[in-house]
């Protein structure tokens, strides 16, 4: 925490159950093998009857709370008073509480009340700490700047699909190097790679069945060998949407869609996150479906999975935002691609006629929104859903 973010009354706590292993480690580290702490027979002959845990062992957790929580990184702990009021035993559950009681703005010093309680809410150690809060640059912004200055790379999952291909080309035109994921169509992946290279950007193709966790892991590993600065992941993977009447649906139909839309997205994000967190910057862009807002019949499994993806996007957005990672959704209306080839012509004509801008969406419309979300122009946008639908659905 930065000094200005800390207020009097701010409080943090942590709990720890003392084990025999803790005592052994403490003795090994400090050499303090006082029999009162380690010898049951000896302890039984004293007023304490049972071994007493080293006072400084419990107190050492004050260091943890100051060093990691209040104020955390940048804490310079320079004073501590301690009164050991009650003995602590093996098996006791200690709760260490630190509370800011005073601030010195000139010196940027905070004073903390540091009390340790046992499981019976009895105070076992009382103390006061003084900590200087050392200023430091925000690593997120610093690293993000570095990444912006270096080569940017986008991994496009489902890069050979209609939207995926348009996204690859748009992002390459925007200055990104492209890692093109494909599953079956290597010829098309090679073609897109060549097109990207014509734009003087680097391109790599990676193959994976994204329903297979191991293949995802290998794909991400290969991608990271190609570029350690993958700062954009576009998740365009899709399969033909099955038309199944509700009474004919099996749970396995839902499972297939959930695996494709949620499990695969989850695994991909889990694999790429450590790099984005390390870089302090990242953009994850998922593809939603207009059918979530405007459902149609016989698509229950698909609509359910895409709805879950919308929720997953928001959940990731709120949790990853402090780490500099933005997660958003692009939701185009009906696009004439290979994926929608089975949709009757009449539905396409009707959708175009009902759309205020009087046409179907195109893959490049979706790519335009992806391009915006991948760029620094959208750095303050996360958890958002950009509907690319010509006004068909307004929320």
């Amino acid at each position, binding site marked *: 925490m930065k000094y200005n973010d800390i207020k009097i009354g701010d409080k943090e706590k942590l709990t720890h159950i003392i084990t025999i292993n803790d005592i052994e480690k403490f003795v090994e580290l400090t050499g303090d093998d006082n029999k009162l702490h380690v010898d049951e027979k000896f302890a039984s002959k004293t007023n304490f009857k049972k071994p007493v845990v080293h006072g400084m062992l419990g107190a050492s957790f004050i260091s943890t709370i100051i060093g990691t929580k209040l104020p955390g990184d940048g804490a310079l702990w320079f004073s501590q008073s301690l009164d050991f009021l009650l003995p602590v035993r093996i098996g006791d559950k200690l709760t260490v509480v630190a509370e800011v009681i005073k601030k010195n703005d000139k010196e940027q010093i905070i004073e903390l009340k540091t009390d340790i309680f046992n499981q019976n809410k009895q105070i076992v150690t009382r103390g006061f700490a003084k900590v200087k809060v050392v200023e430091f640059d925000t690593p997120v912004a610093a690293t993000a700047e570095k990444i912006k200055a270096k080569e940017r790379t986008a991994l496009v999952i489902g890069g050979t699909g209609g939207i995926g291909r348009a996204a690859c080309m748009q992002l390459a035109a925007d200055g990104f190097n492209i890692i093109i994921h494909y599953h079956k169509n290597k010829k098309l992946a090679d073609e897109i790679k060549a097109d990207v290279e014509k734009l003087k950007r680097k391109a790599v193709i990676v193959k994976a069945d994204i329903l297979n966790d191991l293949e995802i892991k290998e794909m991400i590993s290969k991608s990271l060998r190609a570029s350690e600065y993958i700062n954009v992941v576009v998740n365009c993977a899709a399969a033909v949407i099955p038309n199944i009447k509700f009474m004919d649906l099996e749970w396995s139909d839902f499972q297939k869609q959930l695996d494709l839309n949620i499990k695969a997205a989850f695994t991909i994000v889990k694999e790429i996150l450590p790099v984005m967190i390390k870089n302090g910057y990242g953009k994850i862009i998922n593809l939603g479906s207009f059918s979530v807002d405007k459902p149609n019949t016989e698509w229950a499994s698909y609509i359910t999975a895409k709805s879950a993806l919308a929720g997953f996007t928001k959940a990731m957005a709120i949790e990853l935002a402090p780490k500099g990672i933005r997660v958003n959704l692009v939701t185009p209306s009906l696009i004439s691609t290979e994926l929608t080839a089975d949709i009757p012509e009449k539905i396409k004509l009707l959708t175009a006629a*009902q759309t205020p801008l009087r046409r179907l969406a195109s893959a490049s419309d979706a790519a335009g929104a992806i391009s915006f979300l991948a760029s620094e122009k959208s750095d303050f946008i996360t958890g958002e859903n950009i509907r690319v639908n010509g006004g068909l659905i307004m929320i």
Partner: protein
Amino acid sequence: MENSKSQIIKVMSAVFEVPIESITETSSVDSIESWDSVKHLNLILALEEEFNISIPDEEVGNLMNYKLIEMIVNECRK
């Protein structure tokens, strides 16, 4: 099919009171200024009479342009 095309254009021209040559495959509620809600109902009645068909209620609102009219009329004639 070509016959139904000229029949539809004739009906649209008569209902919307515009020259036959102004109706094309791209004509729609956006391009024909006189296409209002009353004329839309007249269009339904005229198409039903011309082709001796009954246009289902759920399709009434879908007749938004020439291509959709042609598609729905042909479906009703089957």
